[in-house]
């Protein structure tokens, strides 16, 4: 089962490599990420599978918006050139080079076995330490919460970087202005019917992260896709980017402070032993929803920064 899926994985990557048209390449990338998601499910990682399914959709959206936007700028995409004669040896050289590197890597690869005592420690004690039924959530909100903190910091830095890199003073769309791209009525009405379900799905995915697959990262990406639906229905740029950036920074500070309070002061010293599980569950749900809100804010800002300059307005 896993071998067949991994062979399909390699074949889809070869399709991406051999493709000449960039739009088709992006569609093949979507198929690649679907196969990835299936493999993660077979490997026993439903959390990662949900995360990858949402992430693949977002990567496809970003690539297509980017391609639409730079299509007008890049002359080499519009003007067709004469076909250059490709030298056979020149085309074969990169294949030989990367093949030789692969064989070297394979020969010197250490034995692919892995035996971690951390696994047994986590699986034995996760329920009494943090009080959840999902060890993955326990690891990234309990034992390794500072890794999650720095991940949140990287997302914040990337949002700030995109905001500053993609700044054009001459072609800035004002708040409340409609996009010049016409919206399709059938697509608009369908999305209008579906989008409340998307929002509910995201909220439920965050709230069930305590006991079943799901959590802040996956639910946040799904809620961000609700805001994309909103843009596709109304076609108007009216998201207050500065306010959302401020909210994101405040949430980041609270993600920083709550674990410090819980880890260094300790829940066991504050609450009685009989109510400990309730407070542990409150901590997990609170942190999951904070991370979900932060991921939502980050991706909404990224998406609206990309669409702020339409292809025809500049």
């Amino acid at each position, binding site marked *: 089962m896993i071998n067949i899926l991994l062979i399909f994985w390699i074949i889809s990557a070869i399709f991406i490599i051999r493709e000449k048209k960039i739009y088709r390449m992006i569609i093949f990338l979507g198929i690649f990420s679907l196969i990835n998601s299936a493999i993660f499910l077979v490997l026993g990682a439903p959390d990662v599978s949900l995360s990858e399914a949402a992430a693949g959709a*977002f990567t496809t959206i970003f690539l297509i918006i980017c391609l639409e936007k730079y299509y007008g*700028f890049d002359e080499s995409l519009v003007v067709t050139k004469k076909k250059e004669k490709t030298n056979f040896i020149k085309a074969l050289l990169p294949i030989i080079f990367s093949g030789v590197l692969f064989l070297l890597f394979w020969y010197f690869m250490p034995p692919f076995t892995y035996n971690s005592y951390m696994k047994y420690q986590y699986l034995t004690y996760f329920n009494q330490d943090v009080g959840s039924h999902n060890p993955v959530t326990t690891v990234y909100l309990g034992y390794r919460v500072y890794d999650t903190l720095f991940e949140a910091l990287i997302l914040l830095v990337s949002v700030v970087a995109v905001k500053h890199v993609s700044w054009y003073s001459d072609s800035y769309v004002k708040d409340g202005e409609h996009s010049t791209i016409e919206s399709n009525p059938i697509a608009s009405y369908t999305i209008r019917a579906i989008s409340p379900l998307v929002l509910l799905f995201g909220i439920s995915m965050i709230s069930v992260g305590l006991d079943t697959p799901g959590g802040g990262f996956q639910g946040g990406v799904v809620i961000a896709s609700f805001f994309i639906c909103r843009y596709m229905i109304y076609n108007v740029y009216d998201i207050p980017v500065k306010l959302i950036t401020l909210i994101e920074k405040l949430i980041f500070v609270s993600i920083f402070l709550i674990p410090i309070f819980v880890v260094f002061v300790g829940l066991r010293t504050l609450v009685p032993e009989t109510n400990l599980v309730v407070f542990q569950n409150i901590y997990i749900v609170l942190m999951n929803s904070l991370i979900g809100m932060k991921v939502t804010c980050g991706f909404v800002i990224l998406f609206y920064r990309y669409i702020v300059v339409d292809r025809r307005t500049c």
Partner: protein
Amino acid sequence: MGFEFSLGVFPVIMFFIGYYGLITSKKVITSVIFISLMEMSGIMFFLLLGYRVGMIPPIAPVGDAGFLTYNMEYIADPFPQALMITAIIIGIAVTAINLSMLITLCKQSKTSNWSELKKLYSEGDF
């Protein structure tokens, strides 16, 4: 050492497919796509570590106190999974930064070919 076949070979193949694409790509946007392929190979390598046939996801039934009554050999390792969730989300952020730099580059230099960009750079125009 030696050419032993294991599941870990597949992500290595994927890494070098991405590498091949990166050294032969002519446009900047294809380079961005191949970088995300190489990143996915790393994520797959971490998740394949310690895989056995018939592994079950690490989700304890509600009511049990963890996995104390289970055979823990056949439960997937939660530690790499928790790290890889964050790695996937960071991957989107990295792609977003790359693409926004690409848009600015195209606006300023009117091209996205690596060879033409190299020519512009050597002439000192850009």
